[in-house]
């Protein structure tokens, strides 16, 4: 089947907005999420967590807990095998299995307030809670390390005495809290800055923030007499849960089957394991099913926020707005174990711009806070905050329109990215042009109001995916993949299958299978599902079509080559039309038995050619100069989606990313007390945006096809959270006439800046 020339392809179903296949279950309450499963004889699990941010565990006495009526199992670090340090593939970010094992259950040391030290399974949740209270842990409390500056101080307490910094020299000799230091760059920085007419330097600090998914982590594990465990859990990656849990528990992969439930948000936060290995081990010990559901407080204290950062950026430009040099130093908090997203930050920080002379230095720092997990374009938003505020200031100093300055320096196909390779076809310039011509950009502003512009970049991922497409007797189809549907991916995968097969999308049933019902599939993350798993679905559908053509050829007794597939029908390519009427998919399906049996297409691939995503955002705010309160008045997000398969869910990703970015910019932050306990571990004081905090969020989808995908798809999920921090900050700076140096731009902080400025 010949692929129509790219870009010219006319789509019949792709690009339409059908109702998602899983929608009805989700609006009627039937959809089952992580905590919605129960089994006969089920026990309730509860985790005991460290009340200290940094402490040596001298001993744990669980006898009183075990003595409590209804308690069926108690586990501590001693029940887990020692796991050697080893890079963990298949998750997100830089994970190490040795660290992972110690993060799910503390061993010699508790490394953050909320670190798991023991877990209980009991007949009721109340008994499990009571049992946790009766576990006696003998702590030697140590001085906690709670900030980047403290961590780097010469006399800083050390979290991991035997760890050594890795990366590029110069590195600290001996024990330190530096996990790694790396350098990236090219050209002649000194010359670049010498050539600049204007140089702007900014220094920003941003706090830890949480992904804030509404569904707490939940897992139900059942282990049989044969030692095989079945795990129901809300995760972005069932195969990841299987691999990570097996590794942490010293089991072979085939001993664990993971059935992904519906998932109530993840944003990267459900790309690793927390309670899963604990529930499995408790169920093995108790011989009964164990359900472990985190409280919201546990989610905040013990699951992945993203890094707090300290970032310095210096950029130079000529009078006519050409960037001549750029330098960045990035310090990222990894939490209690190495592996902040600083690497990605180094690569994304200047990625949108043409730069011959660049130097980027990135530090990965451990301290006594929860280990960070991936969060939507991990590492990029904070880096973009600083670069885009610098670009804004450069434009101001040069008297240039901020979008024009970016257009002048924007990367495009063939340009070598600051992180190394050359870009293929990308749509950055197109997003800038679309933003500039948008009515929002010209709309008048009132008193105390300001407008900010900012851009963002994210790589997007490919990775491994499997897909099966089977044809039912009546010509409808079932699409089976291994990616939990976190935001409408069932619908986009079904659309692609429908497009290939030429049948209505309603006749395609998309299914998310468990780890034993579909081939290995990397997790739902990196904005990869519609791109990579979509590629697998298209390939599997084409496999089906090849079989359908063969069946038709068989029926017509002609060569396969003389049978084409168009719009859901097999047609005979012959000079004498009408000799054989076209055979519909339904007709062929009806005759499957007599033509060789069931028709099932398969694909398994490691998707290459992920297309980078670029976005340009415009934000208007109004500032109350007496209170420092900021109101977001209007917001427009422009993004290159390559090809929007289901435009509604592309818009939804953009709007959701913007909302999270606005929260990050204005109010969200981890607040720790002097002992390292989080003070605002709840939705009341961890202030995520509520409906009345936000305006409608306009979206403009730009489509510059990704040449490496049959439909031109790029990932869209992560890019939208990259620009908002800077878009909001720039808008506030213009509205209030201040210079900001820290997030969040909370009312007290902004009022202080306003009073200082006036």
């Amino acid at each position, binding site marked *: 089947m010949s692929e129509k020339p790219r870009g010219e392809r006319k789509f019949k179903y792709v690009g339409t907005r059908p*109702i998602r296949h899983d929608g009805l279950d989700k609006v009627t309450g039937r959809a089952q999420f992580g905590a919605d499963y129960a089994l006969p004889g089920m026990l309730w699990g509860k985790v005991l967590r460290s009340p200290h941010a940094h402490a040596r565990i001298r001993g744990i006495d669980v006898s009183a807990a075990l003595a409590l009526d209804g308690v069926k199992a108690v586990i501590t670090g001693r029940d887990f095998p020692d796991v050697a340090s080893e890079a963990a593939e298949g998750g997100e970010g830089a994970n190490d299995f040795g660290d992972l094992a110690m993060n799910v259950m503390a061993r010699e040391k508790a490394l953050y307030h909320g670190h798991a030290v023991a877990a209980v399974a009991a007949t009721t949740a109340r008994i499990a809670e009571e049992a946790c209270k009766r576990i006696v842990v003998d702590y030697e409390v140590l001085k906690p390390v709670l900030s980047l500056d403290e961590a780097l101080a010469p006399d800083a307490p050390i979290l991991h005495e035997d760890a050594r910094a890795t990366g590029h020299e110069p590195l600290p000799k001996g024990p330190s809290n530096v996990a790694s230091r790396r350098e990236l760059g090219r050209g002649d920085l000194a010359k670049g800055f010498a050539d600049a007419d204007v140089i702007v330097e900014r220094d920003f600090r941003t706090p830890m923030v949480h992904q804030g998914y509404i569904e707490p982590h939940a897992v139900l594990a059942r282990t049989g007499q044969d030692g095989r465990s079945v795990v129901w859990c809300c995760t972005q990656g069932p195969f990841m849960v299987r691999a990570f849990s097996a590794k942490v528990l010293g089991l072979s992969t085939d001993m664990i089957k993971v059935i992904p439930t519906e998932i109530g948000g993840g944003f990267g936060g459900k790309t690793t394991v927390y309670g899963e290995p604990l529930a499995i081990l408790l169920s093995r010990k108790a011989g009964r099913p164990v359900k472990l559901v985190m409280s919201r407080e546990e989610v905040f204290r013990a699951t992945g926020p993203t890094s707090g950062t300290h970032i310095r950026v210096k950029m130079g430009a000529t009078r006519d707005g050409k960037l001549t040099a750029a330098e960045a130093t990035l310090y990222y908090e990894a939490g209690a174990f190495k592996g902040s997203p600083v690497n990605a930050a180094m690569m994304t920080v200047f990625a949108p711009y043409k730069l011959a002379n660049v130097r980027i230095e990135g530090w990965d720092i451990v301290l006594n806070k929860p280990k960070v997990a991936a969060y939507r374009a991990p590492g990029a938003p904070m880096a973009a905050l600083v670069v885009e505020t610098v670009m804004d200031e450069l434009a101001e100093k040069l008297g240039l329109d901020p979008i024009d300055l970016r257009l002048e320096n924007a990367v495009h196909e063939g340009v070598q990215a600051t992180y190394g390779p050359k870009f293929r076809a990308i749509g950055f310039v197109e997003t800038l042009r679309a933003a500039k011509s948008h009515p929002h950009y010209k709309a008048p502003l009132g008193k105390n109001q300001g407008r900010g512009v900012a851009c963002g970049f994210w790589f997007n991922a490919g990775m491994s995916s499997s897909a099966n497409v089977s044809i039912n007797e009546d010509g409808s189809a079932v699409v089976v993949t291994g990616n939990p549907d976190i935001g409408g991916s069932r619908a986009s995968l079904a659309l692609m299958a429908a497009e290939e097969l030429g049948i209505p999308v309603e006749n395609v049933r998309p299914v998310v299978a468990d780890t034993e019902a579909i081939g290995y599939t990397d997790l739902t993350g990196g904005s990869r599902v519609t791109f990579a798993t979509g590629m697998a679905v298209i390939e599997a559908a084409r496999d089906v079509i090849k079989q359908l053509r063969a069946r038709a050829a068989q029926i017509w007794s002609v060569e396969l080559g003389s049978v084409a597939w168009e719009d859901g029908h097999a047609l005979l390519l012959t000079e004498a039309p009408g000799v054989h009427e076209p055979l519909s998919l339904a007709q062929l399906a009806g005759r499957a038995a007599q033509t060789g049996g069931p028709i099932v297409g398969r694909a398994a691939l490691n998707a290459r050619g992920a297309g980078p995503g670029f976005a340009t955002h415009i934000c208007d705010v109004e500032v109350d100069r007496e209170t420092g309160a900021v109101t977001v008045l209007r917001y427009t997000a422009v993004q290159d989606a390559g090809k929007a398969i289901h435009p509604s*869910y592309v818009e939804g990703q953009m709007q959701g990313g913007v909302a999270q970015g606005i929260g990050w910019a204005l109010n969200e932050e981890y607040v720790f007390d002097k002992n390292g306990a989080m003070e605002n571990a709840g939705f009341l004081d961890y202030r995520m945006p509520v409906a009345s905090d936000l305006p409608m969020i306009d979206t403009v989808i730009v489509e510059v096809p990704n040449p490496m995908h049959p439909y031109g798809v790029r990932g869209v999920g992560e890019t939208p959270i990259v620009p908002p921090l800077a878009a909001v900050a720039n808008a506030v700076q213009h509205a209030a006439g201040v210079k900001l140096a820290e997030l969040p731009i909370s009312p007290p902080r902004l009022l202080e800046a306003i009073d200082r400025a006036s």
Partner: protein
Amino acid sequence: MKIHVHTRVNGEATEFLCAADRSLLEVLRDELALTGTKEGCSTGDCGACSVMLDGRLVCACLVLAPEAEGRSIETIEGVAKGADIHVLQRKFLEHAALQCGICTPGFIIAAKALLERNPDPSEEETRYWLAGNLCRCTGYDKIIHAVLDAAADLRGETR
């Protein structure tokens, strides 16, 4: 000593036994297997467990189960009438007003309570009424559109 509670859930006479400190949310989910009502925080800050109690919108996590004695409760499971889904449910689907869907039952219960009180709410009234329902996926945009469209539909207008 467990307490024997008599109540009506989605129109049906329902009895259950519970300890005094059980929340209505725990009983709905763990005793009555009505898991459409979700738990997001158990502190009344996210609205995922929104239900109607004697016609009042409340968070089921902040109601003690024994308080339900003699009261009537409506949950998401009772919103669709047989084969017919509620206009709000249809509009949420048409507007793609859900991504992960965990907050959706709470939003539909809360929005239904709004439209029963105020058939023609402004965007601002809608946003404030729904401020107790957190959504982390959508940025609220499509949710607000869906609710306003459902209101128009119920008023017999077409937006």
